[in-house]
């Protein structure tokens, strides 16, 4: 009898957790794809009206056009091969780390009629400030210089 009560309690918890997980999943997921995938498959309308998390790209230097009060910019992103125009439609103030060459992860929708990505959320990391490759170019240049001389 005692045992049954505990089993029952366990089942209730597992069922409750399962219910919460399933319900939570219905609304709050987004497909994580790269800019390459989106660029290749945009023509097939596969991603229209889907919530997408777009990763693996950086902000094209000089492409950031702020609105009057520096709140919602339009900008381009690139992965080196493809580029895409982005319009920020979210409400929050963009992270301070958002600037030229930042690595960005965007969440939002692809708008096929304008060929641009409407981002509701922008995550940004600075390219080289935390940890990075900023001196690598310099080192390569020096080493190239050495072999020349």
């Amino acid at each position, binding site marked *: 009898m*005692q045992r049954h*009560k*505990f089993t029952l*309690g*366990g089942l209730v*918890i597992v069922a*409750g*957790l399962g219910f*919460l*997980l399933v*319900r*939570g*999943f219905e*609304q*709050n*997921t*987004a*497909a*994580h*794809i790269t800019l390459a995938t989106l660029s290749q498959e945009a023509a097939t309308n596969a991603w229209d009206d889907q919530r997408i*998390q777009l*990763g693996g790209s950086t902000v094209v230097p000089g492409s950031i056009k*702020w609105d*009057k*009060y*520096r*709140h919602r910019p339009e900008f381009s992103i690139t992965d080196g091969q493809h580029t895409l125009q982005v319009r920020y439609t979210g*409400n*929050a*103030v963009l*992270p*301070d*780390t958002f*600037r*030229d060459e930042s690595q960005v*992860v965007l*969440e939002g929708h692809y708008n096929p009629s304008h060929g641009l990505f409407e981002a509701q959320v922008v*995550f*940004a*990391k*600075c390219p*080289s*400030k*935390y*940890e*990075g*490759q*900023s*001196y690598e170019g*310099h*080192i390569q240049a*020096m*080493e190239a210089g050495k072999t020349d001389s």
Partner: protein
Amino acid sequence: MIDLGYFALCLALVTAGYAVATAAMGARQQNVALMRSGENAALAICGLLTVSVIGLWYALLTHDFQVEFVAENSNRSMPLGYTISALWGGQNGSLLFWGWILSLYTAAVVLVNRHRYRPLMPYVVATMTATSFFFIVLNLFAADPFVRLPFTPADGNGLNPILQHPYMAIHPPMLYTGMVGMSVPFAFGLAALFSGQLDRNWLYACRRWMLIPWTFLGAGLLLGGKWAYVELGWGGYWAWDPVENASLMPWLAGTAFLHSIMIQERKGMLKMWNMVLVLLTYFLCILGTFITRSGVISSVHAFAKSNVGSYFAVFLTLITLLSVGMIWYRRESLRAESRLESFASRETVFLLNNWILLSMLFAVLWGTLFPLISEAFTGEKITVGAPFFNQVNVPIGLVLILLTGAGPLFAWRRTSTESLKKNFTVPIAGGLAVGGLCAILGVRDGYALVSLTLCAFVVLAITGEFHRGTLARQHSTAESYPVALFRLCHKNRRRFGGYMVHLSLVMLFVGFTGQAFTTERDLVLTPGANAEVGDYHLTFETLAQKEDARRDVVAAAVTLTRGGAFLSTLLPQRHFYKNVDQPTTEVAVYASWREDFYLVLVGWDPKDSSAKFKIYINPLVNWVWAGGVAFVLGALWCMWPTSRDRRLAALDRRTSQGLPAGDWDAQKRGIEV
């Protein structure tokens, strides 16, 4: 100095290898000389890594920019404090720092426990120095902070300005001290499995050593939240980012452990479960570090992708195999000694609490790892947004807070229906009264009503415990109420410290509940213009600019009043750091116990000096920070050494002076019973 630091690191590697070998061999052969040697080597690692860390600090403070780490993470214009904290501002330095804290813990364990847990200690030392070995390898071969550039830059990059913040200076060390410290209970768990000494000794050791990092981890989590709140400008403090989740998960597992060990201590049950929890806690710490450092899951936390990740993957696999293997090997010794006697008992509530905490942990883990899981099974990477975590964890959290209050009202073993009625009547009535009052005052959010009702219930239930205990004490001692209350809490630090932590949890939940009522407004104002937001009246006075050596500052002066009464002049700002092409947003907050008025300067038009503001009114946020302070105080109350601890320590000292161990064991039992 930098060469000395590197040299010390190399020596530390050799010493760590020696320590693992001697401690393990000493344990196998029961050779005391080898065990001692292993312990001394563990102390030596601590000394060597201290030299190493000082070496790197010296390089930072002397602006030795030829060292790549120094050039990457500091510059000449950074204030002294942030130059010091730059040590953990970048990956390589933070890993060295991590290893150093680990060695400090190891030294502390050796110095504090080497007489007390004699049969366990060599295994503990072996496990901890093996972990040190791993981190030193990492530092030497994958994340060397002492690497020099082939040239010396004139100035360094500097620490990212958003990290130059007091909370960010102390948040990582707190978190690391928490995460790293979990290796101590892990080591005691493994030592118990290896030595087969699965009596209660390892559990006592684990509890003490779990409480310390658990407190640091909890404090670190909240400090990170505070930093995000005041620095990132999005009006919140917790975003369910994978890295935040990664540090929350071990805290949840540790919390479950701290509760379930009480059942083992009293009833000899849940031995297997407790062992799993203590090993899981450490596993989650390393998993979290792996997630943070490897870049397998995209996160706003910006440690660059590096091959450090693969090292952690190997380490993670090793500790998993070792843990699972050893638990399987000792499965017979981990059987329960007794069974639960009644469903209506405190044991049941503790069991429920464990299931609920683990459910929460599972939900967070599932959401965090789902991109990887979905990619493995369907080929499509699906990410899970913050609303998922809120939707799942709010109901689970409400059950948890209910148990926080209900637990103390149940007696151990079995509770009679009469005593349940007696204990529950006042808290339930009080909770419902508060809930009803909130409803009348206009709270319409279902979860918020339930939460506030439960919070009131828990406060009444717990203060009832304090009250009844004090009255009982007064009855037998004739002390005055305050004296009796203090002595009650002092004599039962563990129990009443635990209740204090529970009360702090209530404060946190009150704060979390406020999130249901956050309001957000965008405003464009010209200088001199007024606006009404909620019952606040604000006047945009002027836009000002100033410049100092490091940065340009643009600030808006906004006067805040309510009902005609002056509240504050707020100065939301943007800083533009000269050597970095990046502004930082400095929000201005008018905080009260009721709510925060949170003001962000979004941007301005230089032509007419008009400015755009973002305003968040965040009810009850202060309760979160106050709850954090209360959490630390309650945890300290639990940890504070008792007279029993002091007597044990005195015995330890006598043993070290040559009293026979058998004599000591008998005396110790006398104290512990």
